[in-house]
């Protein structure tokens, strides 16, 4: 059964709503429209408009309302319509969502899932293609998860909703329509991936690409292309930025002694900096070369016709691999 990422996310929401009466979906246009990306398609029809609530257009209000609902024991799943439109809710994210458990000495946890379609590559006009993961990842108290495959979008979203902590769930919108043979109905609870574990998507011996979300397919493509240059690249999909899976990442880097981090957010103080810094701290003497980064430039996200120059490409990744100081 061919399933798109949108369909897998939709199935995860549906199955979560079925499994737990406390799960509630809310956001802009999530009801009759089924969301601008159709991720909530059919949920209002099946579960009623209260459990899949079209809210007023006010992101701080949406998230603040979700905080109150979570305080009462519900499990709200909030949809932010686009990455940049979550910014109005950042005070709620930083000052309450991330901190409530800590502020109350563990007495009040907030099991909220914040779904954020993020990243570019879809020809979106300005403010529709931001990669905002670093803002969340730098904020203690949040889990930050981003699936890169259809199966993971189902499994990780179910885990996110089941989590007793707030999870920022970043959906790479340019993979929304990617489809594979996958049937959510066949996923058993045991198969649902836990939050916090990276996944080696491709073993390799020459160097290790560390990536996540929208950049995974680009890295896999680069790894395939690299064969012809004589490089056997490993590719690690982080899946969870917080918590970070040091073990899987360091094992994969130590095995090759070389690493390139790839993401499309601006490089400066991005998550890639953290990955490069911590890998270097932990694997320094295994490294034959510095950990390099291939990222978006330090510019506002470009207009559609120029975005291809900004996004990490196979070429840019291979150039970075070439710069990993290979002995001839």
């Amino acid at each position: 059964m061919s399933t798109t990422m949108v369909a897998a996310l939709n199935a995860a929401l549906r199955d979560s709503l079925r499994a737990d009466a406390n799960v509630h979906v809310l956001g802009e246009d999530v009801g009759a429209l089924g969301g601008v990306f159709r991720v909530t398609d059919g949920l209002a029809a099946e579960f009623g408009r209260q459990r899949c609530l079209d809210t007023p257009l006010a992101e701080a209000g949406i998230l603040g309302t979700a905080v109150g609902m979570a305080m009462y024991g519900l499990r709200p799943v909030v949809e932010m319509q686009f990455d940049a439109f979550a910014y109005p809710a950042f005070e709620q994210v930083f000052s309450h969502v991330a901190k409530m458990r800590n502020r109350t000495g563990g007495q009040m946890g907030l099991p909220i899932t914040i779904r954020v379609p993020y990243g570019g590559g879809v020809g979106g006009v300005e403010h529709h293609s931001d990669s905002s993961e670093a803002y969340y990842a730098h904020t203690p108290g949040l889990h930050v998860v981003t699936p890169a495959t259809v199966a993971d979008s189902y499994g990780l979203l179910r885990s996110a909703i089941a989590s007793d902590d707030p999870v920022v769930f970043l959906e790479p919108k340019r993979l929304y329509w990617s489809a594979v043979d996958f049937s959510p109905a066949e996923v058993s609870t045991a198969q649902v991936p836990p939050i916090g574990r990276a996944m080696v998507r491709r073993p390799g011996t020459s160097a290790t690409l560390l990536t996540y979300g929208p950049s995974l397919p680009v890295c896999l493509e680069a790894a395939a292309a690299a064969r012809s240059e004589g490089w056997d690249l490993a590719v690690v999909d982080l899946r969870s930025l917080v918590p970070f899976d040091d073990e899987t990442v360091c094992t994969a880097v130590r095995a090759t002694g070389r690493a390139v981090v790839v993401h499309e957010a601006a490089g400066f103080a991005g998550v890639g900096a953290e990955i490069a810094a911590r890998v270097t701290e932990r694997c320094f003497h295994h490294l034959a070369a510095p950990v390099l980064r291939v990222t978006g430039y330090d510019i506002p996200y470009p207009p559609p016709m120029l975005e291809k120059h900004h996004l990490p490409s196979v070429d840019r990744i291979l150039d970075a691999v070439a710069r990993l100081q290979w002995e001839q």
Partner: protein
Amino acid sequence: MTVLDDSTAPGLVGPPNSHGPRRDPAPLLPDPEPVRILGTPAAKMFDTELQRELYRRLVLGRRFNQQATTLTRQGRLAVYPASTGQEACQITASMVLREQDWLFPSYRDTLAVVARGVRPVDALTLMRGHAHSGYDPYEHRIAPLSTPLATQASHAVGLAHAARLRAAADPETAEELVALALVGDGGTSEGDFHEALNFAGVLGAPVVFLVQNNGYAISVPLASQSAAPTLAHKAVGYGIVGRLVDGNDALAMHSVLSAAVEHARSGRGPVLVEAITYRLDAHTNADDATRYRSAAEVDAWRARDPLTLLERHLRAAGLLDDAGVAATARAAEDLATEIRAQFDNPPDPDPDSLFTHVYATPTSQLREQAAELAARRDADAYADAAEDEDEDEAR
């Protein structure tokens, strides 16, 4: 006399200023019925030249909306949020402004931008996709189209406030300018809307906020957006004047908006105008409006199309005949032809422009990154050329 004035309370030496100012809410509240002129005796008093001009502009505006939508079908525009059905709002928003005034449009307001003199192809740059904005904001006194909803409202307040400060400091070169901010019904729910109106009220800034209430925020109907009697009633909470107008009645729109603008210009404070209108097309070309509204509803509004209402009135008043309609239609076709011509050459934006306007002067980081991209493009060009040569040789 303030509500705090409590001369009976012993020891209270008049109302502490800390609780002022308190004012009579009555003049701030909108009438329960939206202002209408078409079909009322007031229509007879309305300047006839202006009526004809409004008709002409509405027809051209409608043609603009149609042409832009066609461009999306041809793939020459990436996306277009049409204002079809809202032309009376868009056109009058531009007409009531003087040269020194500023317009703060929202993403749906390309038509208002064009009506203020920006070339269609430049107004549509954002939707075309080669740059974020295609016109010089200072040339036209129009801020870039704002996609983050309602965020531009406080910019309007700041600019209007700044102009008054400048005017006070230097009355010689004083411009009595008004800033007009366009917001949607959905946009009124954002905190930014509230903060902008509050600042405007406190500063007494010469700003007019025009809310085009077209009944929906994408799929969300007004009933899920607000429980207010009308959106115009929100004004009283900021001590500013609220007015309600039929947004499909071009004459009413023009008179309410010009009164609001001149109210603000004369220093009597900001105004919030709610125009009740309807978006006849889908949210954008990518939207499927049948998911959230009925054909019957759309039909009911089509019957209240601002063009139809105005044309019917003008004909009845003897201000328009078949020849006039035909002439205007020809002018509209000329506009459409001109727009198509403007779109003839596909844009070819320079990748180097990615780095040039991030800062006034690029940082060393950006210079490095620009050089990297330029080198890559040179290498690609070289590789392409080499490939071409190989092919030539092979032939």
